């Protein structure tokens, strides 16, 4: 009998050893690292000084906003409102390749499918493997010299990286934000300083925003937005893998595959868009096709009330895309309220009035309604 029992020993020890290995690995990953202390100002300066111009990495986006998970629609290469909503639910993985200021590629890795954004100078390609469609956006050549070419804005602003998102939050730091330094940790195998932005306002839904910055290069590697009254981060965008060497140049040369439906679009020279002060809604970061032609005409007449974290963005009548009413998935996510419909999440609220006005902000719905009533 003892012999029989001894034979069961390896069978019991092995799962036990595996469990220990798994737990140990998880603890290791979350372990804090020791770095020379830095003040918040020093870390912000480090981000501004970062000299990373080329990278390839994997970005993971997690949204826990309390919205029901929508099936990935994946239709249409240039994402509309429905796919913006898609990025507010569940998690997405994407690969990002950046080479200098003018070349970037984003690959959204869907199950058995992929959506690609390839930016190379004045050309941008959107490709969707699901319906094998490609959209080609061209920026007319004369516009290129007008912009200061060496600015890194062009692709990195279009591509939703933790860096781009951190940039927007950092640009919005003002007296209404308390900036502190949290415990250092590690992201994508790099030790990072952690910057914590706490809104002083009590009106906003945002509890805190943490920005993890690579201790060596000053590149933001993870952005987490926490909502009030929710333990899990409401939104996080982080590198899971990062390689700072120059990606293969062939990645940025895109030719639409044979048999694909190709749509050509020319982007008119962009006027300087009014940038609303205050942190933008995360959906703006998550929409790869942010530079679509329709945007410019719509952004006229945008007004911002309030300040900083509790600002409310108002769009004039007629600006709500028809998709809001026609798309069954979207209309399902919207709940009827007085005088219109609303989308409420743990981090941001959107109010669409029946007359077509749209109010949005990282504030509770009541504040949007009072802002709408004040009009």
């Amino acid at each position, binding site marked *: 009998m003892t012999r029989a029992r001894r034979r069961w020993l390896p069978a019991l020890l092995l799962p036990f050893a595996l469990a220990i290995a798994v737990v140990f690995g998880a603890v290791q990953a979350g372990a804090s690292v020791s770095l020379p202390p830095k003040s918040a100002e020093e870390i912000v300066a480090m981000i501004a000084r970062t000299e990373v111009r080329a990278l390839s990495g994997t970005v993971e986006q997690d949204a826990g906003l309390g919205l029901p998970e929508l099936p990935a629609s994946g239709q249409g290469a240039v994402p509309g409102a429905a796919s913006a909503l898609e990025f507010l639910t569940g998690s997405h993985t994407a690969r990002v390749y950046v080479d200098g200021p003018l070349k970037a590629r984003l690959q959204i890795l869907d199950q058995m499918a*992929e959506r690609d954004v390839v930016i190379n100078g004045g050309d941008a390609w959107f490709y969707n493997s699901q*319906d094998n469609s490609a959209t080609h956006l061209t920026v007319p050549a004369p516009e290129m010299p007008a912009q200061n070419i060496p600015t890194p804005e062009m692709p990195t602003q279009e591509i939703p990286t933790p860096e781009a998102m951190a940039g927007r939050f950092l640009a919005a730091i003002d007296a209404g934000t308390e900036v502190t330094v949290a415990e250092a940790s590690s992201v994508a195998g790099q030790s990072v300083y952690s910057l914590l932005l706490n809104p002083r306002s009590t009106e906003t839904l945002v509890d805190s925003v943490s920005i993890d910055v690579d201790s060596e290069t000053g590149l933001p590697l993870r952005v987490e937005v926490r909502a009030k009254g929710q333990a899990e981060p409401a939104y996080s965008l982080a590198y899971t893998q990062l390689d700072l060497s120059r990606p293969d140049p062939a990645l940025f040369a895109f030719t639409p595959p*044979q048999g694909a439906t190709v749509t050509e679009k020319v982007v008119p020279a962009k006027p300087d868009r009014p940038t609303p002060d205050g942190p933008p809604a995360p959906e703006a970061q998550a929409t790869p096709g942010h530079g679509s032609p329709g945007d410019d005409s719509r952004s006229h007449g945008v007004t911002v009330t309030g300040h900083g974290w509790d600002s409310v963005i108002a769009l004039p009548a007629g600006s709500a895309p028809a998709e809001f009413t026609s798309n069954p998935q979207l209309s399902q996510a919207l709940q009827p309220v007085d005088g219109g419909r609303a989308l409420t999440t743990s981090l941001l609220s959107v109010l669409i009035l029946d007359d077509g006005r749209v109010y949005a902000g990282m504030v509770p719905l009541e504040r949007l309604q009072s802002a709408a009533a004040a009009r």
Partner: protein
Amino acid sequence: MRPGLGWALLGSELLVLFRRLRTWAMLIALAAVPILIAVAVKLSSRPTAPGRGPLFLDRITQNGLFVAVTALVVCVPLFLPLTVGVVAGDTIAGEASLGTLRYLLLAPAGRIRLLLVKYAGAVAFCFAATATVAASGALAGFVLFPVGPVTLLSGDTISVGESAWRSLLIAAYITVSLLGLSAIGLLISTFTDVPVGAMAATIVLSVVSQVLDNLPQLEWLHPWLFSHHWLGFADLLRQPISWTSFGENALLQAGYMAVCGALAYAKFSNKDVLS
């Protein structure tokens, strides 16, 4: 114990396995799947709308090489686990029910070695089954449709030679994916003398695992399900190849192999072989 004995045992095991009518019937059934797909697409007058049906179904008319990938997508959830479940569930229980297990153990082979040889046989079948689908798909596509450069999920185009290499990688990926299921089949097979029971239990488990994988409420469980990465071979069709899922899948399957192998050893070494 002579070291050559294990190899001799493996040789005879493979010979028995691949001489069986049942094995051939299963491989022929698997080979028929891509042929059916190719013929159906060829005969249908309407072109398939993009985005409908299994992956790449709409591209088959443009490029025959997609038949193999489409067929693998169709086979991975059910047909492959079905055949692998039959082979893996039969390993020990089949011998026990035929009364041949006693004779196998009379030879100075040792129970560990017998288990390893049986498992190796099941793994060989996994590869044979996957390769059969891929090869028959490539052949059917080659005969019925034009063949040319292949479009990847990323929209990049690769040459025919490169696509053959990727097909091989996909076959390897799916073989690795089925290692965990084979180990589970082997484990269940040591618990019973009724091979049909072990086969059915293995197949049911593969279905259960896939159902659980589709329930969003059980998200914490998903990374631990052996079928979680089964359809991850699409990552080999990206440019550049994403190896993450290959690595995660291999690690997960190795874990299942280790745990089930250890349990199977414990059970089998204590088993009273009477028949």
